[in-house]
């Protein structure tokens, strides 16, 4: 009866190394990912799925751009911002990108302070992140209205292939929606942190589950992901 001990699988055997230990961890009981809570695992897998959504959008964009017979509009011309009479190519987008990347920084800090249970600083940092995110969406709205003003429409534009406007509005719109949802959740969770929900184990309104400070980290994962996606959109739309 050598196996009668509770079968925690191979865990604990000293000879495990490298890939083998990875494999036996994954195959162990209860949890495949030992350090990930349910919520965190869920967010990672959701992000994987969402990567496929954005991936499909971007591949569709590339296909559309390659297969349309009309010439593609010149990005540095279309996306230039006029300041004091001179047109600066990519100025607005550079600022937008800077803002969004900065918000990733404040988000990372917020996660750190959340685990120290510093409610004040966490809340402040989350609000700062939300503000930066909202600024980003605001500037995007500005860019949209500028383009619309110049006659760019989903179904056509004066600069070239109609697919330019279609893909641009669709993909930046989809990304902007992600940012907006992120901002809303930042506000909701910042409120919970501020109110001390995670200290007293107050139950969620919908889910009736107790929250943890980990919620900040999970939201952080989402936020960094949305940032990362932006880098790709930026590269494919503005630099190609």
């Amino acid at each position, binding site marked *: 009866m050598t196996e009668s001990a509770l079968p925690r699988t191979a865990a604990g055997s000293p000879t495990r190394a490298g890939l083998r230990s990875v494999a036996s961890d994954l195959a162990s009981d209860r949890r495949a990912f030992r350090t990930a809570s349910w919520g965190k695992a*869920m967010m990672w897998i959701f992000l994987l799925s969402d990567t496929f959504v954005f991936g499909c959008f971007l591949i569709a964009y590339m296909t559309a751009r390659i297969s349309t017979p009309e010439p593609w509009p010149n990005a540095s011309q279309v996306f230039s911002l006029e300041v004091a009479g001179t047109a600066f190519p990519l100025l607005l987008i550079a600022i937008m990108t800077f803002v969004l990347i900065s918000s990733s920084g404040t988000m990372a800090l917020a996660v750190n302070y959340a685990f120290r249970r510093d409610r004040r600083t966490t809340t402040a940092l989350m609000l700062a992140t939300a503000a930066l995110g909202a600024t980003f969406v605001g500037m995007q709205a500005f860019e949209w209205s500028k383009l619309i003003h110049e006659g760019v429409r989903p179904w056509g534009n004066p600069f070239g292939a109609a697919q330019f406007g279609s893909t641009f509005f669709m993909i930046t719109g989809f990304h902007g929606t992600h940012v907006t949802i992120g901002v809303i959740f930042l506000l909701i969770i910042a409120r919970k942190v501020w109110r001390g929900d995670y200290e007293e184990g107050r139950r969620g309104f919908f889910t*009736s589950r107790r929250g943890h400070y980990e919620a900040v980290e999970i939201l952080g994962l989402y936020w960094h992901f949305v940032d990362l996606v932006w880098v790709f959109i930026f590269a494919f739309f503005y630099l190609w």
Partner: protein
Amino acid sequence: MTEIPLGPAVETEPFHDDDLYHPRSWLTKYVFSQDAKVIAIQYSATALFLGFVALALSWLMRLQLGFPDLVTFIDADAYYQLITMHGMMMVVYVLTALFLGGFGNYLIPLMVGARDMVFPYANMLSFWLYLVAVVLLLSTFFLPGGPTGAGWTLYPPQAILSGTPGQEWGIILMLLSLIVFVIGFTMGGLNYVVTVLQGRTEGMTLMRMPLTVWGIFTASVMALLAFPALFVGAVMMLFDKLLGTSFFMPALIEMGEHLKYGGGSPVLFQHLFWFFGHPEVYIVALPAFGIVSDLISTHARRNIFGYRMMVWAIIAIGALSFVVWAHHMYVSGMNPYFGFFFATTTLIIAIPTAIKVYNWILTLWRGDIHLTTPMLFSLGFIITFVNGGLTGLFLGNVVVDVPLSDTMFVVAHFHMVMGVAPILVIFGAIYHWYPKVTGRMLHEGLGKLHFWITFLGAYAIFFPMHYLGLIGVPRRYHEMGDATFFPESAQSLNAAITVMALVVGAFQFVFLFNLIWSLRRGEPAGGNPWRATSLEWQTPETPPPHGNWGRTVPVVYRWAYDYNVPGAAEDFIPQNQPPAAAGGMA
């Protein structure tokens, strides 16, 4: 820097009972329930209902094909609408919903020893979004223009142009419905995946999970990666339709006039669609594979042959099925070199699939086979699946596929492999688990009759279609017309198929009757009528109550296939039986 403490969730807390949501009212207990078992029943009931609707649609199609002038309101347009709604309903709203939403919800938590899914609230939303999707889909029957007739593949440009029925509302609501379905499924799918990965009980290692869980788990992962393509395709086509974008629309002339479209790529849609569409076949097949493995093992009282191989085969099939999609596009005009690549990958999938079939047969070999209804259905599955798989090898080869493309041969093939075969598993699984869900057995006699009529009938319906396809009868045609190259007998064969389809279809209502009748009158089943090993049969109460396990969650000591272990007291050892108590070698 100070060390950042890890989140509290890392403390080993697979389940704090107080985190289980306890419904307080009738409404939250039975309607807006967060209990996976209730959600499973809601999903299954809705999907079964749709299954009967889709069955009725197939009757109408068959009537038209068998007796062309009988039902006067089925003209070419109506026929297109029928095939479209029938195909889409069956594939997405019936089979996917039944296997993942129905069986997944019921079986995953019970089989891995959890009290519920990990996110019950999202799980509940998943069902309600599914219901919204279903309502959107069905509403098209009542709107001006009726449902879309674009075919279940919804190929643009014709899908959204005038001339295709349902271009007023049908196509718009179809696309919306698919979008809602994908969002709803994602909520459920995340639950199924995370529950399997992170919500198992003590001792339940991945390699001790019943193959049912492996199948549903892998299918859910695949769905989370494949549905995005459908989602994106649907969004883009919706924009083409509503905003006048030209993602999929080339320059076109209609009735002598240039349309506003130009520069889009119809083949792009086909790629997106089949990047979803092919994995979808396996999203339906893998749960069926898993369930069949468990049914065979239980009813042949024998451990599954080559468990590890079975698991790896499931994973290999799941992974490979993401690189074969363009075998549906041999005649689409894509680069011919693609055809070579995709034909190769397609044929490679046959290897893990064949391994599975051999292992099922080796499991049966010298088993103590009980010809119960679930066993009969499992055997029926193996036969129809092998049959459909073989014709799949024909269609996977470019040169053979090109002449067979868009003929009844294709219809015969996919009905065998992804219509009949999974449906047989669903029936078998319902006969197998109904006692757990309701506490009563389904009527065996009626069950066996149901099996023989369905199985033989399915052959009578679909086998002749291979022949019709070979002589060139096209698919999606509402009549054969005056073409001279068909023998006279083709029409009489069509009539015979129709008669069989009506009989077999009608008999499904006997099954429905059995389901309802047995709810009250069925023989009481007890907790473990099949003397099975897996955890769902070891619940303290049957049907399992909210929370599944009473005070303590079970601890698992062995895999799910300890049947006829030499020296053991009984011919099966439940997974949660400690080694000392089992006797024999553990």
